[in-house]
């Protein structure tokens, strides 16, 4: 039969499910703490001693919310670093394409792809710089940056017709690097969104 400590640990484990490794580690650590605290209670051994130990520990949802806030900060940092690397790689790849295109496959001026390639990148960069200074946890700003970069990279690839025009290896590699980084960036943005939602839910239910 489970007691107050078992119930508390199971609840905390569930509330930390946004990070399974942390949930496992903390459940074990907190159980150890609560058993020490209950054993130090004059009423030990009894469910009352366990209940008091749990009460002194604090609400599981508030503790999980503190971990969730820290997880949001870490995820936001990872996302911003990936965004910065993606912007640099996209810029380099864009320049490599332009140099190569100037020599060989100049796109027609009426084509909209070069405009999207350039201005979507500039928009992503501008939003990114503003958000870095003002809204570092803004999912919307990061999503706009991601959208801008996807549009720019997509337009760049279409513009150069990369996979059919016999582009040199360095141009193909830089494009592959862009695509891979966009994948990683998307993964981080989605992860940040999940963590922000989880944190908001824990805070709302805890109020």
């Amino acid at each position, binding site marked *: 039969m489970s007691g107050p400590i078992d119930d508390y640990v199971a609840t905390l484990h569930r509330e930390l499910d946004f990070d399974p490794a942390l949930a496992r*580690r903390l459940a*074990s*650590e907190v159980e150890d*703490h609560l*058993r020490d605290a209950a054993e130090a209670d004059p009423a030990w051994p009894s469910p009352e001693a366990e209940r008091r130990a749990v009460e*002194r520990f604090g609400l599981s949802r*508030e*503790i999980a919310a*503190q971990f969730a806030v*820290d997880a949001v900060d870490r995820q936001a940092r990872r996302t911003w670093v990936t965004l910065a690397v993606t912007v640099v790689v996209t810029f380099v790849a864009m320049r490599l394409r332009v140099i190569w295109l100037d020599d060989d496959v100049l796109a027609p001026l009426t084509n909209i792809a070069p405009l999207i390639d350039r201005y979507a990148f500039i928009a992503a960069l501008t939003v990114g710089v503003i958000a870095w200074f003002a809204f570092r946890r803004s999912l919307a700003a990061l999503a706009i940056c991601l959208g801008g970069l996807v549009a720019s990279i997509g337009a760049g690839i279409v513009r150069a017709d990369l996979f059919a025009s016999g582009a040199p290896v360095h141009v193909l590699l830089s494009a592959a690097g862009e695509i891979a980084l966009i994948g990683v960036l998307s993964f981080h943005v989605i992860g940040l969104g999940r963590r922000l939602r989880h944190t908001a839910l824990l805070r709302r239910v805890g109020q």
Partner: protein
Amino acid sequence: MLKGHLDAIVLAALEAGPAHGYAIIEAIKRRSAGTFDLPEGTVYPALHRLEQAGLLSSAWTTPPNGRRRRVYSITKAGSAALTERRKAWGRFSLAVDTALEGGRP
């Protein structure tokens, strides 16, 4: 107000030697003569944050007659950070003391 200084208080509690979560919270209560009677669970997010920042390290240990525990130790970076926070707190508390003493503006 305590929350903003919890990380430094946890670092200070570990200055005397490695300890597990329950011992850390007991040390904080003892050192503050019961003034810092915060919910015991609040120390764990702080421990995790400090470990992520490289100011603490931790490892599981199993004493001969006891349960498996996670024991935390302060790192060199943690000791340096604690020294800095003590200096900052000294300046801050001196300024507050001076302001609260009143006198001429």
